[in-house]
C-alpha cells in the first residue's frame, strides 16, 4: 500500500472501520484507534498478500488494536449512545424506537466477548460467515455456532428485560 492506496482505502473503508470500532469499543471516542488502524495497516502493508479483502484485513487489525487498547487501559469505556444517530434513513431504522435501541445496546454490551464479536461482525456489520471468520480468525463452523448461540442469548435477555419491564408497569 503506497500513499495513494492508503488514501483510497481510507476513503473507501474508514466509515466501516469507524462503525466497527464504535461498536467494538462501546464508545464513539475512537479517533485515535481509527488512526492507529490505518497507520498499522500502512506499516504492515507488505504483509497484506491480497488473500482476503482489504476490508476484512482492516477489520482484523481494528480488532487487535481494540484488544490491545483494552489491555493497556484496563478500563472499559462507558457506552455512550449517540443521542441523534445521523443515518436513520431506512424505514426499518425509523421503526426502531429509541428505547428498543438502548435495550439492544445494553444486551449486546453484557454479552461475553466472543458473542459480542460475532454479533458485531455478522449481525450489525452484516459481514458474511467467511468474512467474519477472517476477521476473528475462527473457523466458519465456530462463527455459525457462536452466532447462533449469541442470538439465542440476546433473545433470552431481551425477553427477560421485557417481562421485567411489563411487570413493573402493571
Amino acid at each position: 500500500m503506497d500513499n495513494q492506496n492508503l488514501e483510497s482505502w481510507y476513503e473507501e473503508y474508514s466509515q466501516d472501520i469507524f462503525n466497527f470500532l464504535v461498536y467494538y469499543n462501546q464508545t464513539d471516542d475512537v479517533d485515535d484507534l481509527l488512526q492507529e488502524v490505518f497507520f498499522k495497516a500502512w506499516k504492515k502493508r507488505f504483509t497484506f498478500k491480497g488473500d482476503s479483502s482489504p476490508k476484512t484485513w482492516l477489520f482484523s487489525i481494528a480488532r487487535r488494536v481494540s484488544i490491545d487498547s483494552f489491555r493497556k487501559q484496563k478500563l472499559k469505556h462507558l457506552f455512550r449512545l449517540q443521542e441523534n444517530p445521523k443515518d436513520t434513513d431506512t424505514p426499518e431504522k425509523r421503526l426502531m424506537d429509541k428505547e428498543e435501541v438502548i435495550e439492544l445496546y445494553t444486551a449486546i454490551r453484557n454479552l461475553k466477548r466472543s458473542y459480542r464479536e460475532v454479533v458485531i461482525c455478522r449481525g450489525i456489520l452484516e459481514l458474511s460467515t467467511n468474512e467474519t471468520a477472517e476477521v476473528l480468525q475462527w473457523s466458519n463452523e465456530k462463527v455459525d455456532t457462536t452466532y447462533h448461540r449469541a442470538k439465542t442469548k440476546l433473545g433470552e435477555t431481551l425477553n427477560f428485560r421485557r417481562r421485567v419491564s411489563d411487570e413493573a408497569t402493571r
Partner: protein
Amino acid sequence: MKQQDKVEKKLKALPKHKMDNARKQRNYYALQRPRKESKSKYFAYPLTIFTFLVMIFVGYTIIHENKDRTTTTNEAYTNMQMYFEGIKPIYSNSHIPDTVGVPEEYHKGVALGYLYNASIFYTPEGEKVNPLEINNNINAYFDYKEERLDNFSEQPKLIADTKPTWLYLNSAAELIDDKSISESLIGLSEKISEITANNSSQHNYSVYKEVSQNISEIVMEINQVTGGSVVVYEGESKNWFVRLQPLDDDDYLLHLNSKGLEENNVSNISISGLNSKFSVESNFSGKSKYIFGDSLPENVIELEEINIVIRANGMEDTLSLNRSTEVRITP
C-alpha cells in the same frame, strides 16, 4: 417469526455510526501528519536536522558516559513491561508448532510462556532454578568464585540447557512484533550460542551467567505487570501427562505428552470429558502434541477437577486434571 430472526432483524436495523466529513478529514490529516512532517523536515531543513542530531549525540554522550550498561538494559525491560502489560502467559513445555493454529491474539501470551521457559537456569552445582519462584535475591545464585568454576562437574547440564534456552528465546522473538524487543532476545540467543564444550569452563559460565541473569531480570520485571493468575488443569496417568489451559471465552490449549506410545507411532486419539460436553479427536505421533480448540464448555474455569478419558490404540486412560495456578515448567 422465529426469535432468532427477530433478533437478527433488530441487529441489522441498528444505526450505522459514521464520521461527519470534517471528522473524517481531521482523522486522515492526523494519520498523514507524522509522515509528511518527517519528509518535509529532511528536505526543507537539513541543517536543522543535522544540528539537532549533533545536539542529541553530545547530550547523550555527556549524560551516559558514566553510566554502566545496566541502565540501557533497564530501559529495554521497561519496553518489555509495556509490551506484556496485562498479558496472561500461555504455558508450554516445548515449541508450539504453527500448525496448531494458535490465533494471533494469543501470540504475546505464547511468547511470554516461552520467556518463562527460557528463564529456567542451572547453578554450577546443577541446581535447577526458576527465577519466578524466588524473590529478588537472584544474584546470590550467580555468586561463584572463579577457582570453583575450573572444572565444575555439572558443566554438561549447563551446556545442555543452552539448547532449550536458545530455542525459547528465538521462538519468543519470532512471535513478538516489536522489533527492539525481538532483537534484544535474538541478541541473548546469539550470546548463549557462544557456549560450547571446546571453550573454557570460566568462559562458558561467564556467558551463561550473563544471559541467565538478563532473562531472569526480564521475566521478573514482566511478571509485575502480567494479567493476573492463570488457571491450568494438569494431570497424569501411566501413559499420559495432560495440561489443559482455558483461554479467553471458549478457547483452550491442550497439551498431551505421551509416556507410553512409541516415538514414531501414529495413533488416532480421542479425548472426552466434562460429562461428554468436551471431546477432541486427533492424530498423535511423536511424544508430544498441542491442540488449540474453541469449544470448551462454559464455566469450566470454576471447576476444581476435570475428569477426562483418553482412548488411543485400543487403550483407555482415565485422568483427573486438577486445577492449579502454579504451573510446573519443565523445559
